[in-house]
């Protein structure tokens, strides 16, 4: 049976994996109401608006 002759070094393993280990910064958009940076397609956690409508009353939640 074919068997690897040498142990894969840490450097080799990590070089191979490096492409998938990259951290990607989240893509943020500005809230159309308060200008706060928010994740796209999410209700703004600062003002509770989504697509120009008040969907969450933050005072109620406290």
């Amino acid at each position, binding site marked *: 049976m074919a068997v690897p002759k040498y142990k894969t070094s840490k450097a080799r393993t990590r070089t191979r994996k490096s492409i998938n280990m990259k951290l990607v910064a989240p893509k943020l958009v500005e809230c159309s109401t308060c200008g706060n940076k928010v*994740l796209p*397609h*999410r*209700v703004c*956690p600062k003002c509770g608006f*989504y697509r120009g409508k008040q*969907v*969450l009353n933050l005072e109620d939640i406290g």
Partner: protein
Amino acid sequence: MRHRVGFNRLDRKTSHRKAMLRNMVTSLFRYERITTTKAKALEARRIADKMITRAKEDTVHSRRIIAKDIGDKEILNKLFTEIAPMFQERAGGYTRILKLGQRQGDAAEVVLLELVEKTEDKKEEKKKAKKKAPKKAAEAAAE
């Protein structure tokens, strides 16, 4: 063939899942908006939408079918007399899911599951209509 016709088992046994979804749908009809995770919301919405469609026709038969899943008579009545009539003109898509963000602890995606139309809004509209109506009547009388 029943290929590719699936649903999310939500990591629960059938009885657990059924009970949970029943409770969720009952709560949705009671409060008209509930906060939950995305996976649960998508499953609960399937059931809720089907129930509303069924409830559009207020017959003893459809009431009995839905009463299998909604034990609370008050909510059952609300579904048939308040919620379903609001959607009479709408062919599906009675619920809306709004993403809120991730939960601390398990980073689950939290969403808001709500009815597209609210009974409160409807009541206000009626009140406004009633307020307007007497005025118009009065104007007509003055002329």
